[in-house]
């Protein structure tokens, strides 16, 4: 099956998953969440196949242009959600995550995104492309889940529910922060050193990942050392995710720099 067919099937599965999650959200019947989660997992499997086919057909990692990297970020977000949901049983965030994922998939399939796989420019011909981009986006996917659970915290009213969202947010950051540090900053520096001969050039994308890192460092220090929890923590996590989103997306379109690939 071709990559575009698999992509469409994935998209449909995600939409169905979001639909069931939304009926669960409005009916508050836990049984409705089950098909939502099964469809998300099914979508994830087909999506994995789509990415694999893309890799085989193009001969390079499936995140070298905006279409590919959006699709990969959607994949990573579903993966992060499935992992967190399995551990903490939080189907409530299902509808929101799946709506974000659908948004990413819709953006990826919009006509303004060129879809054809282009051959790799010399600067991207490196196995560090795999390591740098996949680990960074996976980290950002966990930030996305933390973003939603933090909003859930702010929206929740009962104290025990609030506590649960607060703790899940922290656990997401605890996974996302090391991944983001490793993929975005460490692997990024190693690759920059190999390709350009300098590990840090204060390029806007580099600076914005540093800013993202500062925000989550702030999150951890205020929380662990100063005992901030709840509302203030949630707000910092939300700002952190927005910074990560800007690093990923905004820098490419609003600021010029070395990172002009995707």
């Amino acid at each position, binding site marked *: 099956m071709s990559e575009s067919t698999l992509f469409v099937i994935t998209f449909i599965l995600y939409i169905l998953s979001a639909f069931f999650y939304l009926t669960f959200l409005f009916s508050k019947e836990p049984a409705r969440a089950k098909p939502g989660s099964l469809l998300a997992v099914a979508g994830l499997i087909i999506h994995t196949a789509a990415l694999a086919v893309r890799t085989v057909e193009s001969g390079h990692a499936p995140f070298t242009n905006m279409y590919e990297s959006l699709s990969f970020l959607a994949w990573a977000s579903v993966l992060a959600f499935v992992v967190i949901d399995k551990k903490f049983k939080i189907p409530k965030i299902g509808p929101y995550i799946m709506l974000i994922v659908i948004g990413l998939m819709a953006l990826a399939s919009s006509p303004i995104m060129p879809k054809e796989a*282009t*051959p790799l*420019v*010399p*600067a991207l*011909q*490196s196995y*560090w492309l795999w390591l740098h981009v996949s680990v960074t986006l996976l980290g950002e996917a966990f930030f996305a889940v933390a973003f939603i659970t933090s909003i859930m915290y702010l929206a929740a009213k009962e104290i025990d529910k609030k506590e649960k969202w607060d703790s899940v947010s922290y656990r997401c950051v*605890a996974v996302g*922060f*090391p991944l983001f*540090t*490793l993929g975005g*900053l*460490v692997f990024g*520096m*190693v690759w920059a*050193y*190999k*390709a*350009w*001969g*300098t*590990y*840090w050039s*204060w390029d*806007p994308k580099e*600076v*914005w990942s*540093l*800013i993202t890192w*500062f*925000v989550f*460092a*702030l999150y951890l*220090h*205020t929380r662990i*050392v*100063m005992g901030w929890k709840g509302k203030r923590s949630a707000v910092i996590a939300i700002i952190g995710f927005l910074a990560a989103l800007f690093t990923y997306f905004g*820098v490419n379109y609003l*600021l*010029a720099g070395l990172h002009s690939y995707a």
Partner: protein
Amino acid sequence: MKAFLKVFASIRLAIILLIILAIASVLGTLIPQQRSLEEYTARYGQLSGLLIRLQLTRLYHSIWYLTLLGLFALNIIICTLTRLSPKLRKALRPHIQTEVKSLLALKVKDRYKKNAPLPEVKAELEKSLASSGYRLRTEGRDFKVCLLARKKILGIFGSDVVHLGLLIILAGGIVSGLTSVRKDLALKEGESLPVPRASFEIRLDKFTTEYYPDGSIKAWKSAVTVIENAAPVLAKTIVVNKPLTYRGYSFYQTSYGWNWDHPAVEIWSKKKSDPAFVKKLKLKVGEKIALDDKDQTSISVARFIPDFVLGEGNEPQTRSLQPNNPAAFVEGFQGGEKIFSGWIFANFPDMDRIHAAKPTDLSFELKSFEAGQYSVLEAARDPGANLIWIGCILTMLGLGLAFYWPPWEIKAVLEESQGKTEVIAGGIATKSRDSFRSEFEKIVTSARRTK
């Protein structure tokens, strides 16, 4: 001194500095960095002078940003050191709990009684703890023993290892800033250039550009030889992402260009009177070549311009080093006398700019040209880079310890009276509390059950 230490030991300062650093960094991505004065004036007008004076146009290298980083480093050092000694004491000489009341106040706790003397009960509990990987310390004897069992104690140093890693990264940045050497070497094929501040040369043997079928660039390849004491010592092909490293220097493929000194051109000569007449000539710039032996005419190409444009005073010059508008200056001779000359253009074959003393029947077209390319290799030596990698490894190791190697602690008080021994145990885990709770239950259950 005391006040100074107090300020720098505070986590509040760290938080303020993180916020200021984040905001300052944002500012530097909004104002384009290190551009020309003209660009700033065009963009910001009156404001540009102020921006430059505040060093906002080279923000990340400005005194105030570097000062912020310095304060941040100092803050990290003092914060870490002041918190280190209690942590070391906790790890090496822990306080063993003797109060039953404080054990019972813990969230994870249990108590049981056995009809056995204390040493027996203690041995069972110790065996159970040891089999789960706990290291034990005991205090007291005879009828009351306090026990402290711990594992993954290294986890408490996670944040310190991260901080050490970050400081080493900052140190690496300083070393790089002060000592790194960086120079672009533009090399023609066959040419060699000395590497700055090194005792060897680098020679470009061959430079090739490979293309994908769609015409986009696949690779730039520079085959180079390292020459030391006039002898070749190492040969390697450098491509983007695969630098050559030799004696602490790395050589990167950074750019390329055409060498327009002596291009070879192909010129077709035609006769206006005879459309069937075509003579194809290949010659180098500066070379004279016979056109017609009968009337002893010859031509030469005196100049070649890759991107022809008329400058001030109608002087021909090149706009760039890219072959966007290639032009050749052709001269015709007859018996040593110049009979015509003029520019011909590859992109405009019909444009005839030949000026002749006598009317000539000949016309010329610039069909193709071949120029040697040069390759630009960046020679870089950065002694700070190794510190950066050490810092990165420590940072990741520290994050791993801090998040995924949480110290677990089980404390117990054993008391014997009238041949019966009572055990009161409690546990503390700052992270992974659920798995700790189940391990605690497993240990206590197995110690209780043994006969």
